[in-house]
């Protein structure tokens, strides 16, 4: 079913903007404060873990890869094959563990819940029976605040997919994600007004802003009476109101081609994740957000992967055995399909002209997974891939940190990567998440 926003329509949006000169102007304005730094963050996360053997790059001609000069498409089922064309802009990192879920945590807080909470927060869940909450924010939330943008958090499965989420607010509470295009379209484009010099429209805009002004006054009054976590609620409320105000008071010159309607499609479509990505790309094109997290879980049934009538989690992930090449290959085939989706996002960004290059040049994509070891549901040696032209770190590299096959010996806390990433967005942090694992990732900048 090809009901997603057509590629052509998307391109029409972009090219129309480029012709009118809006697009360049829009982005220059939006990022004037830091014209050379990374301007967008895309987080892609998917389930089911990873099989290291077919995931890691190989030297051209075979054999172990060095830091540079490798290939990804060395096997029909190699996981990262679809990213071959983009490999010069990748940073592939092997050997990072969600150490915060293991070290000094008894019993360990791992599995699906640990794999949802920790990857982007660098923190473990609060306790065994409160395991889907933590004590601090996720990287996408932090970067969105830094950029002053309202993030798009999208999870195709919605709440029917369980209470899992990867994005967390400052208090460590899950941020509810969007999952229904109809709602999202209304929410993001509903009050999107074409610029106008009509006095009535101006008066309406002023009245809208007076409403927000009242809301902020009210939030400030309430905040002054609060302390601790209760105060944090009102801080978050004020953050949201400030973003709303910013959008409402945006200069009228900023515009884009508003999509005619909400995207359509269903979870049964092979292209559904791409439809989700198209929606995020449209928001990027319209300057409506700079942070987009997509939880790439579309359920268990994915017949198009070519594995037959099997359940991706129950059969493929659980059926994975490192010493059984057939099971490794199946998992890699599944993950290769996800890699193709990542490639789609990359290509979408590359198709958006921006400045002297494309939007890809100003974006960092973080692609991660809930699990490392699929069958045992352990959060060690998670597959982390960075893509995009944004940021000052050196690209086209394969960083091999060395990993412990057993979760009992986590070696490389992934907090360093989160810290490095945050600092690419100008955060200037000395650590991210769990304070026991400070500092940036060694070798990140290259």
């Amino acid at each position, binding site marked *: 079913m090809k009901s997603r926003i057509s590629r052509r329509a998307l391109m029409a949006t972009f090219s129309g903007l480029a012709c009118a000169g809006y697009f360049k102007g829009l982005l220059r304005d939006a990022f004037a404060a830091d014209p050379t730094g990374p301007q967008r963050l895309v987080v892609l996360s998917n389930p089911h873990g990873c099989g290291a053997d077919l995931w890691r790059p190989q030297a051209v001609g075979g054999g172990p890869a060095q830091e540079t000069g490798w290939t990804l498409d060395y096997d029909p089922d190699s996981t990262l094959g679809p990213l071959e064309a983009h490999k010069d802009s990748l940073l592939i990192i092997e050997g990072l563990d969600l150490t915060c879920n293991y070290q000094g945590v008894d019993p360990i807080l791992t599995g699906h819940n640990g794999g949802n909470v920790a990857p982007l927060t660098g923190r473990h869940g609060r306790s065994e029976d409160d395991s889907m909450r933590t004590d601090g924010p996720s990287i996408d939330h932090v970067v969105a605040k830094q950029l002053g943008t309202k993030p798009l*958090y999208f999870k195709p499965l919605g*709440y029917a997919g369980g209470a899992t989420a990867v994005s967390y607010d400052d*208090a460590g509470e*899950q*941020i509810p994600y*969007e999952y229904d295009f109809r709602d999202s379209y*209304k929410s993001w484009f509903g009050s999107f007004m074409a610029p106008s010099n009509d006095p009535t429209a101006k008066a309406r805009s002023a009245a809208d802003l007076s409403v927000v002004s009242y809301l902020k006054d*009210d939030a400030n009054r*309430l905040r002054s009476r609060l302390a601790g976590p209760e105060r944090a*609620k009102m801080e978050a409320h004020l953050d949201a109101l400030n973003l709303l105000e910013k959008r409402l008071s945006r200069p009228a010159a900023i515009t884009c081609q508003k999509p005619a309607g909400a995207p359509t499609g269903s979870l049964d479509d092979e292209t559904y994740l791409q439809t989700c990505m198209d929606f995020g790309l449209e928001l990027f094109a319209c300057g409506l957000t700079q942070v987009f997290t997509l939880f790439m879980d579309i359920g268990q049934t994915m017949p198009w992967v070519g594995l037959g009538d099997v359940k991706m989690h129950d059969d493929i992930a659980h059926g994975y055995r490192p010493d059984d090449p057939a099971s490794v290959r199946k998992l890699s085939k599944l993950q290769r399909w996800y890699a193709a989706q990542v490639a789609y996002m990359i290509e979408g960004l590359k198709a958006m002209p921006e400045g002297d290059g494309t939007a890809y040049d100003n974006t960092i994509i973080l692609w991660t997974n809930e699990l490392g070891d699929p069958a045992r549901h352990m959060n060690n040696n998670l597959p982390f891939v960075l893509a995009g032209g944004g940021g000052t770190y050196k690209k086209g590299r394969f960083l091999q940190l060395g990993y412990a096959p057993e979760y009992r010996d986590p070696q490389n806390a992934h907090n360093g990567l989160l810290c490095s990433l945050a600092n690419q967005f100008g955060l200037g942090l000395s650590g991210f998440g769990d304070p026991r694992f400070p500092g940036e990732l060694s070798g990140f900048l290259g």
Partner: protein
Amino acid sequence: MRQTLSALALLLFGCTANIVGSGDQNGVDPQGPGLVAGGGASGGNVGDPGTTPAECATAAAQKPGISARIRRLTRLELENTLTDLLGEEVRPLAAELEPDTFAIGYSTGDERGVSSNYVDALKIVAEGAAAKLAGAPETAGLGASCSADDASATACAKTFLETFGARALRRPLAQAELDGLLVVYTAGAATVPCGDRGAALSAGVEYAVRALLQSPDFIFRTELGAVGASGDVVTLTPYEVASALSYALTASPPDTALAQQAKSGGLTTPDQLAAEGRRLLETQPERFARQAERFVREWLSIDLGSPAWKKDGKLYPEAGPAFKAALDRETELFLRDWAQNPSLSALLQSAKSFVSKDNAPAYGLSITSADFMPTELDPAQRAGVLTLPSYLGSRAHADSSSPVLRGVAVLKKFLCLEPPPVPAMVPPLPPADQSDAKTTRERFAQHTALAACSSCHQAFDPMGNAFEHYDAIGRYRDEENGEPVDSSGALVGTAGSDAPVADAVALSGLLATTPEVRACVMRQTYRFIIGRRETDADACVMSRYRQLFEQRQGDVRELMLALVTDPSVFSRAAMAPAP
């Protein structure tokens, strides 16, 4: 495929290693009465009525267990609140908001704040609601005489905002609020071109109402005490107490009479509160029924939209959208009917349900009517909520029943116990389609017989096995794959010795009379109504609730009433600064 999945259930359970654990956080004793492991009060034996009154008479025990806080309205609460303000026409608007979250297991948890997305969606809701102002009785005061001149218009707007605003915020407006709303009013009135004073008045009021309905003081209800209050303990205002009462019992704002009691000082004693609570229950039975329904649905995680209800279409072709919608409707009718006399025993033992042609297949009945008729089911096969197909299918896999999921559910939901930790290395399962087992129970038993598994599974499998008469969509069966069903099981995990049961009907009956179950249901109700997990500091009030729940033979409505009319409802501990 089918067998693979069934046997994988065990490993799936293993996946969720972090759902396991030993009891609750904060040192609360999962075994029940104690709530106070080591807190000085008697932690003691299951079945013990709990902390003694003497201990609770000490000054320390009088300190409020709950801190001052703000609680965001849930979706149902917002829906009822908007409807009370503006009429039935606005009821559907709340569905625009993101679904509730369940950090404490209930939508009412007090951790709720707002996200950026929530704020944007609330804007859409408020704009939709403000466009339906005609549904508010206060608009009668915005008649033609208001349009005589600008001063009249402003005076009318002010009166409107004072009265409508007091209903919206569930308390009188502060001067700063009224002043701020009049600023919005002026800006809104300016959106109408000069000349049409009546239209300008309407527009101004509409914009001010948009502001009211998005304001933090609307979307959060406060438990903060009077402005400027200080000290270790704050006393809630009568308006806050009134809201605590009405939202707990009806998920709705105070009605006119309750608001009047708050204003006139008639809500200062537990007795006065209880009288008002009983009046609310009598005058708004539908609202209470919906609240009771919400409690049970959230407590037992009955969710037709959950992944568990994506049944294998080849095995269960009947489990399509109409069937699921009918099971959902049946659940609603069953629970709202129960709410008329909501005892724990009725919840667990009633054989009456509501059947139409669409859910009849779950019961093997032939019915042609699309109407849901009260139906007495075979009491040998059905007993209460745990044998509702909607519940049973929520605790099953896509292609099979699950003794594990069903057993764990009883353990967690009715005994308030967590399963023991899964061993760090659950051994890989042999391919299950090579299994020679014919029934689900046999397949599971083959795995749980392994030494590494059996020690954990014995904590819940005996309860889950009792449900083996029900397939993945809750149909009753005597045979599975030609083999007779073995539903023999036992209630385990209580203070007494394990009690054998023949099936789920017997298990339900036993649960209804087990002290640990009543203690657990009391705690579940507490979490739902109070919006947080219990802690050591709650030991004394919990002891009171528990005794009351026993005295009232497990009447959940009486317990809910007690929870919001206890003396503890009037005060809160001062907020702690950020850690």
